[in-house]
């Protein structure tokens, strides 16, 4: 175990074709925490991860991964890292067990070291008994879990996950979250990128909001909500919602956003607004506490970010 922070990044910069993708990003992980990089598509999350792993050479800045300078000693540093990439890249020619065996060899482990670990890893991934299953026959969720198991073959100190649950159904997502929590309780450090707010809220002790390659805020998820947004949200649906939002809503809500036929009213106290809405049966309403997704939409806007 390395006593120091598993990953320290300072003033990282990277441009592609003249466009700044990562712009002076700073980051320091605390051992044993789950740290989330939150941001819209194209915010520079994946590029940041690739730089941290030594797979992309930054234009400037310093990276220390498990105590080693990156990219100079990236290969050595990666020996203590487990990576779950954004897109599954399991070996389709191999069975589940062979995937783990072959991957372990890339870490310089001998077959005798790896083979006894395989049942344990598959068990952890909820794939017990699937040793000989062909990768092509596994569901999306199973592949994701096998990729997670593969990332654990070297018993890493730091796990790096790039959108670990994107594209999975709710059951598969919850299973992954449960496993990640188990890893955190074993003392592993996790760095993940996500735009699933629920995921960030459940797993991360600290969140960094990344936009246009810059780190905007670092704080615990609840604080992010408290700081940036009113406590409650009333969603108002219906054909008349946009007109209502324009003419009447501002009297009751601190902030109103309209997206299509839905008006999002942000309030610290919803009583007056709900009373007003009770007389308008043509408008359907949903009253709920504000969540990270609201923060995310407020800060990055409702328009597509491609």
């Amino acid at each position, binding site marked *: 175990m390395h006593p120091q922070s598993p990953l320290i990044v300072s003033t990282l910069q990277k441009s592609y074709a003249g466009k700044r993708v990562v712009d002076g990003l700073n980051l320091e992980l605390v051992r044993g925490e789950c740290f989330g990089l939150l941001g819209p598509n194209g915010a520079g999350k994946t590029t940041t991860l690739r730089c941290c792993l030594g797979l992309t050479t930054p234009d400037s800045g310093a990276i220390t991964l498990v105590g080693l300078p990156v990219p100079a000693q990236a*290969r050595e540093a*990666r020996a203590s890292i487990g990576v779950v990439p954004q897109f599954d890249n399991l070996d*389709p020619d191999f069975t589940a067990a062979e995937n783990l065996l072959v991957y372990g060899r890339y870490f310089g482990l001998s077959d005798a070291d790896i083979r006894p670990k395989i049942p344990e890893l598959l068990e952890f991934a909820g794939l017990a008994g699937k040793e000989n299953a062909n990768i092509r026959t596994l569901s999306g969720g199973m592949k994701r879990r096998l990729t997670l198991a593969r990332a654990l073959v070297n018993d890493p100190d730091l796990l790096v996950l790039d959108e670990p649950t994107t594209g999975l159904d709710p059951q598969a997502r919850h299973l992954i979250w449960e496993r990640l929590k188990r890893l955190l309780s074993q003392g592993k450090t996790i760095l993940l990128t996500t735009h699933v707010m629920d995921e960030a809220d459940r797993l991360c002790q600290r969140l960094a909001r990344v936009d246009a390659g810059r780190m905007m805020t670092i704080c615990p998820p609840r604080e992010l909500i408290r700081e940036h947004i009113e406590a409650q949200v009333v969603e108002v649906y219906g054909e008349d919602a946009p007109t209502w939002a324009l003419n009447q809503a501002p009297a009751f809500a601190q902030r109103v956003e309209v997206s299509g036929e839905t008006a999002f009213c942000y309030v610290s106290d919803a009583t007056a607004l709900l009373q007003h809405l009770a007389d308008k049966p043509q408008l359907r309403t949903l009253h709920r506490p504000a969540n990270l997704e609201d923060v995310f939409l407020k800060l990055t806007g409702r328009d597509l970010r491609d």
Partner: protein
Amino acid sequence: MIKAMSALDYSLPRFSLRALAVWRRNFLVWRKLAIPSLLGNLADPMIYLFGLGYGLGGLLPQVGGVTYIAFLASGTVCGSTMNAASFEALYSSFSRMHMQKTWEAIMNAPVSLDDVMLGELLWAAAKASLSGVAILAVILMLGFVASPLALWALPVIFITGLCFAALGLIITALAPSYDFFMYYFTLFITPMVLLCGVFFPPINCHPWYKPSPHGCR
């Protein structure tokens, strides 16, 4: 601190033993399909060898002091080594790089791109050598080669494999899609097969064309 490091790195490659893990990965895939792969690698050149060797050979006097089929046999060893190395380093490596993202997965482990390249190169050369050696074995058994000196072909086969695997990997790195490989085959490999003495001695060509002797002879 890294100061504006260029994306182009001209330093010499740094290899490690992890390249062997890459080699072993490809070997494990191959082992699952070894029989059809070997048969495929053998059948095509053998059909050419016997078809042309006996068919065309019947019309020809001796070529370079040996029967035409014996002449063609040695050319076939070279030609199929070259083909096997090229196909592996082009189509198979391209699949691993782009389609399956195998290299990307490998490089998330402590394996550098240099190691991946070395593993791929040695693998393509090994697979090509197997093709070449299999054909050499068949023609030895059929008695087209009498001298034990023919065993000197073994290192030549391996070097031929390495050479064409390396060329193939360069094309793979540059290719935007599989279609691109057609240029390489049409403009480079096919002319080489026809002009470098697989089917006929280069000496019979136009007087201004004096190719260097074929790898095999």
